[in-house]
């Protein structure tokens, strides 16, 4: 049954999907953290404002797959569109956890930093950001998973390559055994991506493993 399994093609499809998720998630990490931190330094009045809240919260409800037609319309079918779809999937959890993490920095830590006369950008970068990192990593873990699911969906709808595209192709050719191989690969790679964020977290915030405070 599996004698027609084309290993080089499978490897290539895996690499395509992985590179897309990497690119999209990287964008989501940078922009998600930046927007999350920016939201946390809005004046208290704006933070409580329901309209502001709505503008930040509402866009995360339409799932990445629902955006695909618009992304194709605006960016065409290509690598960049795939990145955007991954970005849409990964951005929300990273943005949300960054904002929540920044908001939950304890008053004692904030006060202490202010006593040390740490202000402005330095306060954000040297105090709020590191203090929020454990929660940011929670968001990145979810974001990577979301991004991975999104890229498969995007490839199934509009791809020319990748595991999602391969599933579609094999479905049309009724090669259900090859389709199963794709599904299994998606599971394995998803798991490995998740594990690598856990590994990165241990490398980047070892102090969190050490018990935080």
């Amino acid at each position, binding site marked *: 049954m599996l004698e027609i399994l084309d290993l080089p093609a499978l490897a290539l499809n895996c690499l395509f999907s992985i590179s897309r998720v990497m690119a999209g998630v990287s964008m989501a990490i940078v922009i998600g953290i930046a927007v999350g931190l920016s939201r946390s330094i809005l004046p208290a009045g704006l933070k409580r404002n329901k309209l502001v809240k709505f503008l930040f919260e509402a866009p995360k409800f339409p799932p990445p797959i629902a955006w695909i037609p618009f992304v194709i319309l605006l960016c065409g079918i290509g690598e960049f569109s795939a990145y955007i779809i991954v970005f849409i999937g990964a951005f929300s959890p990273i943005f949300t956890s960054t904002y929540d993490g920044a908001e939950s920095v304890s008053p004692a830590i904030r006060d202490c930093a202010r006593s040390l006369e740490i202000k402005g950008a330095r306060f954000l970068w040297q105090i709020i950001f590191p203090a929020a990192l454990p929660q940011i990593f929670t968001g990145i873990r979810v974001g990577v998973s979301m991004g991975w699911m999104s890229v498969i969906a995007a490839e199934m709808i509009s791809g020319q390559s990748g595991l999602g595209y391969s599933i579609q192709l094999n479905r049309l050719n009724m090669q259900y055994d090859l389709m199963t191989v794709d599904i299994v690969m998606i599971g394995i790679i998803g798991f490995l991506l998740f594990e690598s964020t856990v590994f990165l977290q241990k490398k980047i915030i070892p*102090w969190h493993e050490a018990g935080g405070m």
Partner: protein
Amino acid sequence: MIEFQHISHHYPGKPENLILDDISLTISKGECVGLTGPSGCGKSTLAKIGAGHVRPAAGKVLVNGRDLTCRPNREVFMIHQEPDLFPWQKVAKQVAFAMSKPDNRRVEQLLALVKLRGFENFYPGQLSGGMKKRLALARALAVDPELLILDESFSSLDATLKNELYEDLRRVWQSTGTTILLITHQSADLANLAHREIRLSAAKPTTISETINLVRT
């Protein structure tokens, strides 16, 4: 010299719930003053007003005559009742970070003073409860403030460890001469350490009920 002038306070939106009522207190350079009072009387609130973290409803905080009310500054540094170490900074970094100009020799001296030599590369999460308190003390000394406020720094620890830490504090105080406001709910903690004890009243709103001069041995 640090002056608390006619400090009154209620938390926002609750003017009927006056917590501190006209508290005046002067602490001279080099003094160690104890501040005691029952739980909830407003000791931490007064400390936060002193350090500029809370704006009092009325009154001023003067540091050597300069009005620093509600302006967090390096002149009045408090060790909070809640954990306030930066969990992402290693011991040595934590102390160096608090200095106006990082100075490795001074970091070493301070760590030796609080018996944390050899733990330079530990994160706060890897230290015991008592060691964390000593690190907080070393960091506060690194700031080199005009007034150091310790808000129930050792209260949560068991009696033996607490006494040990007060012993350390006494030693540190003798060698650095830092001006200290020591907040605790037990007058006994102040023995052999504070020059005088300011007692806050149990009745609301809180006032200074008495000032006791302590004999120091």
